[in-house]
């Protein structure tokens, strides 16, 4: 349930955007202030705390040894999970993940999976029997709009921060050495840009208020080599083809800024 936005706010925010301005003084293609810290949780293999404006997410990466999926016996497993904590907004309820939380997890997962960010083959230990399982858990602490971009940026940073134990196979037995930690095998980096359609314009990084009145939104996952690796359209109204193409151009341009926040590696 989205909170109701007063009609007068809807009108004034839309009118501003039609004039190329925004209520918080940003340009249409400008992010709010972004901050990203890594290595904030010692008990996690990798972690990151990301803030876009007042939206705040804590992300932890954990690893454990487990069984591969039967249809992909020779590659490692990774899972992405998110919790829209009831502390993050007055309308978030405790309980099992609702559809918004599942969408957030799945879209973040898709960017990483389809962008081939993690080299999953290197996470296989005994083919068909034992593999590394990597868990990305996203804890939404404060919701002030645009969770998707914050989640994708934080998840990428936490993966880059992660160090897992060295595992070797001896006589069909896995030996896990916690004294020798090594980084996760990563091929690439990916981040995501979300644009909201309000009035006749596309605005980058919608705030909470803008999300309340947007007609639709489009989120585009881009790799550091410029390839598009995931997309998600949301919202109740349609897009035209030209708008989507324009959004891709904007995303490819703006993700360059986001990559700058990631650790250099």
């Amino acid at each position: 349930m989205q909170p109701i936005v007063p009609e007068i706010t809807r009108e004034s925010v839309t009118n501003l955007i039609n004039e190329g301005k925004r209520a918080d003084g940003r340009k249409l293609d400008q992010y709010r202030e972004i901050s990203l810290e890594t290595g904030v949780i010692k008990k996690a293999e990798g972690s990151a705390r990301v803030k876009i404006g007042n939206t705040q997410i804590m992300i932890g990466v954990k690893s454990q040894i487990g069984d591969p999926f039967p249809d992909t016996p020779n590659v490692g497993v990774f899972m992405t999970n998110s919790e829209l904590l009831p502390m993050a907004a007055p309308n978030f309820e405790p309980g099992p993940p609702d559809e918004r939380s599942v969408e957030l997890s799945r879209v973040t997962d898709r960017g990483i999976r389809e962008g081939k960010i993690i080299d999953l083959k290197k996470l296989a230990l005994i083919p068909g029997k034992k593999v590394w399982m990597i868990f990305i858990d996203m804890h939404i602490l404060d919701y002030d709009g645009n969770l998707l971009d914050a989640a994708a940026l934080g998840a990428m940073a936490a993966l880059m921060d992660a160090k897992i134990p060295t595992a070797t196979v001896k006589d069909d037995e896995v030996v896990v050495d916690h004294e020798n930690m090594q980084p996760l095998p990563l091929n690439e980096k990916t981040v995501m840009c979300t644009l909201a359609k309000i009035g006749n314009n596309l605005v980058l990084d919608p705030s909470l208020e803008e999300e309340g009145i947007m007609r639709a939104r489009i989120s585009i996952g881009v790799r550091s080599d410029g390839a598009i690796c995931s997309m998600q359209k949301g919202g109740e109204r349609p897009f035209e083809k030209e708008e989507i193409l324009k959004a891709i151009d904007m995303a490819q341009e703006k993700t360059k800024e986001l990559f700058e926040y990631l650790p250099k590696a």
Partner: protein
Amino acid sequence: MITIITNRDLEAKNSERPDGRAYNELRPLKIEAGVLERADGSAYLEFGDNKVLAAVYGPREFHIRRFLKPNMAVLRCRYNMAPFSVEDRKRPGPDRRSLEISKLTSEALSPAVFLEKFPRSSIDVFIEVLQAEGGTRCAGITAASVALADAGIPMRDMVVACAAGKANGQVIMDLSEWEDKEGEADVPVAIMPRTGEITLLQMDGQLTKDEFEQALDLAKEGCMKISEEQKKAIKNRYGGD
């Protein structure tokens, strides 16, 4: 078929605490009030390697009718551990342990709050353990009190919690994770510091009556020290002395 080599096999020497603390010494403590935008009140607390976030919403309309009280507010708590807060990933969602802690936290905080001022409403307290290192229920209660104060909810006192217990044959204040697991007993206590009244008391392990009394006194002494930090956090946020 999985062998695990760890570098965490701490061996404590006789009557010395593994982290070198004195028997009545707390771990380093840091509390900050008002850290979240959306919540009505919030607090972030670091206590040793514990990292805990608490948020408060309310008093607000109570939408579960069968639980509402016509003459007072209901203080509801949810204690939750992040999957990445512990060594082996915790499955998300409530388990028996966190449900019990949620109930006790609510009971520990309620006596301090003027619930009778807000009939038919709820005050919701959410505690998130981001990193756990022994004593998270006490850390959660301490943080939640600061968040309640930050939310401007009228209270008789700011409840504060601290554990004491026994490890290596010695009665000690504020058990670490290792002392909690390997030690003989753990006594988490919450008090209202102005009166010293006890609002949370649990014990597991074995103590004589004398040892229990020592532990209780140590826990209360710890509470009084932590209480000063709670007040500082509120003063830092809102000024005044």
